[in-house]
């Protein structure tokens, strides 16, 4: 059994990736208002997901207002799907132990 992906194995980032995997694109405000994190914390998590290659960041301007959108990458989808497979494997071990 391989080790769990530490980037995803964090409650906020797992929720962010899960939300992004259900939609095509989401902006910063949507994730901010949905998750209830602080802006700094959300930015930090998005930065980590981007560095891991799990999220693509698209920056643009609506007039003079900066607008940031996020899209889950193929690598992000694969990592999320692998993560759940690992969790299922762990859960099945728990079941076999009769605990």
């Amino acid at each position: 059994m391989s080790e769990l992906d530490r980037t995803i194995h964090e409650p906020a980032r797992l929720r962010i990736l899960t939300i992004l995997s259900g939609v095509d694109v989401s902006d910063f405000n949507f994730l901010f208002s949905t998750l209830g994190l602080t802006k700094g914390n959300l930015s930090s998590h998005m930065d980590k997901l981007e560095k891991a290659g799990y999220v693509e960041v698209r920056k643009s301007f609506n007039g003079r207002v900066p607008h940031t959108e996020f899209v889950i990458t193929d690598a992000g989808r694969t990592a999320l799907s692998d993560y759940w497979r690992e969790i299922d494997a762990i859960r099945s071990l728990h079941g076999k132990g009769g605990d």
Partner: protein
Amino acid sequence: MRWARRYAKSRTISFLVQWVFIVLMVMAIGVAGSLTNIAYRYNNMALFSVSVIAMGMTIIALSWFSVSKWGGELIWRITQWLYGEEGYVSYLGDREDGPTPWWVTTLGGGLVVYHLFGAILVSFNYLHINNMQPYSAAYMVPFLGVMIVYQRLGFWAWIWPVLYGLHAVALLMGIGPTLRGQWQMLTMIISVFGCGLIAILVGHAYSRFALWKLKRLARSGLPDCPPAEDELP
């Protein structure tokens, strides 16, 4: 994931904004059309010419607004403003976000031509005004069905063609609600936009519910998380 997608598919404020624009333009077309009818009856060629030109220009404006980039951007800005801090999220599925395919434009153009033809048939008494709504539904119901599938809209969107089709069947059976006298022509207009508005409002109500569910799930056990232990410097 499920609730995020359901929410994205039921964000209907952009449709509400388009609905308002289209209703205003259709009202303008309706006024011009009524004037054309009156002018034709009283053989007033000056008024007839002016009202036909006004009707044509409004139809061109409506068509241009529907397909132009400027119209799309205006709707986008108003929609974003109305959603405010709720943010933006979208789901198109495997449909590519590009220029409108030719067949969609053709079907949209066909819709306008079909209804104009129906109005002419009514004007010259080839089609009874009572049958205008069922005549319209014969094109609108399959057209809306195709658009809903193409745009990957949520369940709420089906309310529109279903209600409109049921109204047409009820009218053909002589039991459908209809306006009388000089307002009879409005039966179709009120039906098409009324059914659309009901669908949009149901979609909006559902989006509130989906967002509430999503927030509840996304925030459960999720305080403003500090960095994990292995992430601390």
